[in-house]
């Protein structure tokens, strides 16, 4: 590995100081040569980029035997099996690529990430993401208490593997959860709580995530609330930034819809003061994107961000943070309720779910209470149809019983707006012309729910 090293958090902070949004793809290939080629192309994109090494699903669920068998069979995996390829292979794939101008984050989605953390530190990396709740409840069957214990150990492993000059970084995926139909207050609260958890286990540089939802104004309020609560609740000396995810729900199938949604997320990131953006591509609705599609998405997002102009000053008397709004109030209530249970989040988080004080809508995990539900209101904002035992109120709008068609309509709220072609689906926000529109074959027409 290179001797010159800058930590992931410091890289994003330096870009922010220079007025640049860091853009990052989702990208993972089983073959080390393809993985390296993908990172090289990410680095060479006309944008301020961070690299991504996404781990395959077998490694994610801890089935290393299946990952080894797939590599042995030459099967195509949906990501890089970092705990299967020898560390020397991973180091060679990164050699000469990772340096002060290009950090690489390992993305995985595991509720039991110790093996992945051991493998990434052995390869000389020190940035990853996830969280004890956000990589457990929405994505599998691992009991929450086991995930919490595993994440505590993983953070301590990562914090203890520090090389001189390096500051390990962990991003909370708490602002994404199931990707859609979760009102922002809970997303913001979980991002803050997970980053506090990381800090309690020795991590000194974190990022708080938020996934673009259904309404630009509500999203901006949420990112600002996230920044404000992070500053308030994270211990002094813990470096942090906000990472925005381009919409994670059912994605537009048309190239123009996909591009416009990506550009809207880049402008949202700039407007709300996020430091980093995880992009989506025009291929998202159809299959795992190619490297070329990823590079195009990175450059499109960077161009939209550069054209967006500086964000509104957050703290002035007329600034958007002046009264904070309902997302801030809801998130603060949830955070304080959890912290009141126990100062140690390893105990407080499982206790909060066990008592129903946190409840992720539509999540099928056995440890999730499963009594909450989100909806898209007539103005396009996400609201609570039901809050179960959470210390926040459901919205007065009466929610119709949930049907398959109703769910599908809610899941497709954004895709409908962006795939149809009104001049601007962003409710009046100025929109520069699309940087690149590529004509692609028409999309298949069958119903897909992903």
């Amino acid at each position, binding site marked *: 590995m290179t001797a010159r090293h800058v930590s992931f958090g410091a890289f994003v902070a330096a870009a922010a100081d220079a007025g640049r949004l860091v853009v990052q793809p989702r990208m993972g290939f089983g073959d080390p040569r393809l993985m390296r080629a993908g990172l090289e192309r990410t680095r060479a994109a006309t944008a301020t980029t961070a690299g991504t090494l996404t781990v395959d*699903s077998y490694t994610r669920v801890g089935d290393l035997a299946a990952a080894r068998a797939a590599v042995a069979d030459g099967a195509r995996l949906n990501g890089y099996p970092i705990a299967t390829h020898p560390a020397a292979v991973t180091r060679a794939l990164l050699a000469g690529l990772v340096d002060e101008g290009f950090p690489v984050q390992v993305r995985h989605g595991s509720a039991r990430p110790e093996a992945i953390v051991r493998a990434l530190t052995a390869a000389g990396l020190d940035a990853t993401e996830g969280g004890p709740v956000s990589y457990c409840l929405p994505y599998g069957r691992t009991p929450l208490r086991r995930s919490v214990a595993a994440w505590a150990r993983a953070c301590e492993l990562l914090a203890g593997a520090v090389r001189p000059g390096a500051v390990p970084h962990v991003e909370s995926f708490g602002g994404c959860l*199931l990707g859609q139909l979760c009102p922002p207050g809970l997303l913001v609260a979980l991002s803050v709580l997970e980053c506090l958890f990381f800090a309690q286990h020795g991590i000194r540089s974190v990022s708080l995530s938020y996934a673009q939802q259904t309404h630009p104004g509500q999203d901006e309020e949420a990112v600002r609330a996230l920044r404000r609560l992070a500053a308030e609740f994270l211990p002094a000396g813990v470096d942090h930034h906000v990472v925005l995810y381009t919409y994670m729900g059912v994605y537009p199938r048309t190239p123009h819809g996909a591009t416009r949604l990506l550009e809207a997320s880049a402008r949202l990131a700039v407007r709300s003061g996020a430091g980093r953006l995880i992009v989506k591509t025009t291929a998202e609705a159809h*299959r795992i994107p190619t490297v070329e599609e990823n590079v195009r998405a990175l450059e499109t997002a960077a161009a939209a961000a550069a054209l967006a102009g500086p964000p509104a000053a957050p703290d002035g008397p007329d600034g958007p943070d002046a009264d904070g709004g309902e997302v801030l109030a809801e998130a603060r209530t949830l955070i304080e309720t959890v912290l009141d249970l126990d100062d140690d989040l390893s105990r407080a988080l499982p206790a909060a779910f066990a008592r129903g004080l946190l409840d992720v809508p539509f999540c099928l995990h056995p440890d999730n209470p499963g009594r909450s539900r989100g909806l898209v209101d007539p103005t396009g904002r996400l609201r609570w149809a039901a809050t179960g035992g959470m210390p926040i109120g459901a919205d007065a709008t009466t929610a119709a019983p949930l049907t398959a068609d109703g769910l599908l309509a809610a899941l497709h709220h954004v895709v409908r707006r962006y795939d149809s072609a009104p001049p601007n689906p962003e409710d009046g926000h100025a929109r520069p012309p699309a940087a690149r529109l590529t004509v692609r074959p028409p999309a298949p027409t069958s119903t897909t729910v992903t």
Partner: protein
Amino acid sequence: MKILLSGTASDSHTWNLVYLQLFLGELGHEVVGLGPCVDAEELADACRRHAPDAVVLSSVNGHGYRDGLAAVRRLRAEPALAAVPVVIGGKLGVAGRPQETETARLLRAGCDAVLGDDLDALRGFLAARVHGGVPA
């Protein structure tokens, strides 16, 4: 009829399962939903416990052919589960289009139908298995 609805071993996706649970329920079926990331052993356990009339596997993470094969082989290895109808659908490979060889392998292993993401095909498959009833 009673349907066991499940994700596949390495697939964490949930919305497909939330939707299918509602969809199948509205067709008049009793649905037992196992959630995402169910490995072959857990699936076999659940089949013994719930004795379903059909098993619906949904996978969208690109490992569906591989995970589905392991699941079907595990069910068919057990005499009590050798005959339960099993259907798998979703986005089964990483290539974004059906793979004939992989589909044939699943069928040979004892899968009764390999579908894409066409819900009419799923409705048809289940209707054909409702004993003496008129499909919803």
